[in-house]
């Protein structure tokens, strides 16, 4: 691992260049799961991939691990480079997987093997990188567990996964991922199954490891709050496409894409004024088998016009950010909605007022 150099002088650790993932189904149309996704992660940087279900965010990280490619019906296009080296065959992924590339999954309980102790599972991960003698191995395992905030490593090493809490299992998963001293950590919703107090601890831990081990981290989440917490860059996906990429200071104050704006507006806050109604985005996330024509967001978009229904917008870079939208960057509806006074009138059932609830 290269230490001590300023991050800027190095190329990106991970480059995903126009990657597409398509699932071919016998007797049915193919499903475009990821469409032309481009992003990069540098050492010592946390990139957060945000999206709702069906956005392709989890498929993207699984593709990076070479896991999607194991399925014969899945076709992967585009280029994935680690340190500038192109990865295309399963052998190339296999050489890096569990060593330079490590992954943490959402369900810590089901990602650990229930019939082996934590100690034996961590030992296996450790041996992906190096063979040590027994006492040295044991000491390294203790050190790993202490690193992820476990104060009684010996007890945990002897434990089976079911004897540990969800938060503890997630720490063990992270320790397993770190055992081989990876350079890039892929984390798929690593805190979604955990309580907020434990989530905060795990996010702190990932951030600390980023600094201490100069890790590059690609973290997938549906929670914009989590993104704001740890991200150096935020990548927003919708219906398989990257629709916006920007620094958090930008994306949370002046989002350019109407989807990002709508998403931010629809999240209730725990401070500040409370609107009577949340400004929700109409409709629901499209199924990959039934993507709308043109821009996939256009049926839900307040700014959509005739062109949006026909042509998919290209990715356009503005400064340090990118957006895929024909009408980007107009005044954010987020601020406007937050500032408006609460609506005064309430319709009642007799007048059919119930229908104002919006479309499904």
């Amino acid at each position, binding site marked *: 691992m290269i230490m001590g150099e300023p991050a800027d002088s190095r190329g990106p650790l991970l480059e995903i260049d126009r990657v597409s993932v398509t699932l071919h189904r016998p007797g049915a149309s193919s499903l475009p799961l990821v469409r032309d996704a481009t992003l990069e992660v540098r050492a010592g940087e946390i990139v957060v991939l945000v999206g*709702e*279900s069906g956005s392709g965010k989890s498929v993207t990280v699984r593709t990076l691990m070479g896991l999607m490619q194991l399925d014969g019906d899945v076709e992967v296009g585009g280029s994935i480079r680690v340190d500038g080296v192109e990865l295309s065959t399963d052998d190339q992924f296999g050489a890096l997987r569990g060593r330079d590339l490590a992954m943490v999954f959402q369900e810590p309980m089901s990602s650990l093997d229930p019939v082996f102790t934590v100690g034996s599972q961590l030992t296996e991960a450790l041996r992906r990188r190096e063979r040590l003698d027994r006492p040295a191995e044991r000491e390294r395992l203790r050190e790993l567990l202490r690193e992820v905030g476990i104060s009684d490593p010996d007890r945990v090493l002897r434990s089976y996964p079911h004897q540990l*809490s*969800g*938060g*503890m299992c997630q720490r063990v998963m992270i320790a397993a991922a770190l055992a081989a001293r990876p350079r890039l950590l892929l984390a798929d919703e690593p805190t979604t199954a955990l*309580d*907020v*107090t*434990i*989530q*905060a*601890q795990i*996010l*702190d831990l990932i951030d600390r490891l980023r600094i201490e081990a100069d890790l590059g981290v690609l973290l997938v989440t*549906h*929670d*914009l*709050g*989590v993104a*704001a*917490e740890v*991200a150096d860059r935020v990548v927003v996906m919708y219906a398989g496409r990257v629709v916006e990429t920007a620094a958090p*200071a930008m994306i*949370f104050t002046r989002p350019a894409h109407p989807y990002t704006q709508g*998403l*931010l507006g*629809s*999240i*209730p*806050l*725990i*401070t*500040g*004024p*409370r*609107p*009577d*109604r*949340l*400004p*929700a*985005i*109409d409709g*629901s*996330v499209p199924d990959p088998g039934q993507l709308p024509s043109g821009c996939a967001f256009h049926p839900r978009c307040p700014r959509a016009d005739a062109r949006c229904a026909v042509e998919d917008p290209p990715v356009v870079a503005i400064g340090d950010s990118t957006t895929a939208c024909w009408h980007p960057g107009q005044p954010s509806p987020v601020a406007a909605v937050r500032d408006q*006074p*609460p609506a005064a009138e*309430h319709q*009642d*059932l007799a007048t*059919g*007022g*119930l*229908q*104002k*609830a*919006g*479309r*499904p």
Partner: protein
Amino acid sequence: MIEAPASAPPPAQSQARALLGLEGVSKHFRVRTTSNPLAPRAVLKAVDDVSLSIAEAETYALVGESGSGKSTLGQVALRLLEPTSGRIVFDGTDITHLPDARMRRLRSGLQVIFQDPLGSLNPRMRVAQIVAEPLRVLGGLTGSELEARTEELIKAVGLDPSRAGARPRSLSGGQRQRVGIARAIALNPRLILADEATSALDVSVQAQIVNLLVDLSEQLGLSYLFIGHGLPVVRQISQRVGVMYLGRIVEDGPTDEVFAEPRHPYTRALIAASPVPRPGERERVRLAGEPPDPLAVPTGCRFRSRCPLATELCANEAPPVVTISPGHTAECHYVT
């Protein structure tokens, strides 16, 4: 830390007539702690001497970490589980030991919306059948009357009536939750238990369902017992909130007041840990450790093992319930 809420909160209705009242309610489970079937069982106090009151047309939210007992409390409140001790009063009737036959007559007034809409809808039934079932079985409606009311309900929850023939599988998550809500309001209930009703939904759809629940409450005069782990949704939807920790409500008060000025150290920690989509705005207060084993609740104050303020007093004596303002209480030796 937080400015005063700008939008006027709905008036705290603690003085209004209580629709549901819980007084000193406990729910204990006897659990096996070893594989020896003859060993004495330990007592797990999932809910430990809890009192709360929900007014008409009010939304009361319970928050807390998993294992805090909030779902158990919700089920006891509707007598889906029998309380070990305490008293439950619904609409002026003591229902704690009401015989099943009489309880059944009250059931239409107490409904539930579940977290997982797919798992709680019969996959073989169509939307219209699911919504019509309670009307048919308990409401005694038939023929065109049944059809008209079913369609009214489907429209009331914002579903396209053309989807009435669809089965749950072919609906989106938000649409399924709307079906679950239509079924729950079919018999004009007074109180709905919404247990993590928006947690499984996509962010953009969650807002739609929260708005729908608020609209229904206003239009139908419904009360909710809303159980959630996401603080932002709880703040949006509720007028009152109870914060649970290891089986007890440690802080209880008007939502706007509790969020603006949390008084229990656990409430403060929960709010501090809740991520907000505003980079750098949050104070970095961290709660160390995990909730203790509910079979080994700490002596004195149950929160003391994770509390930054804990002293010897907290280890020796259970904290008093301190009234901060009318309708706002916290259970702590050092309420600040």
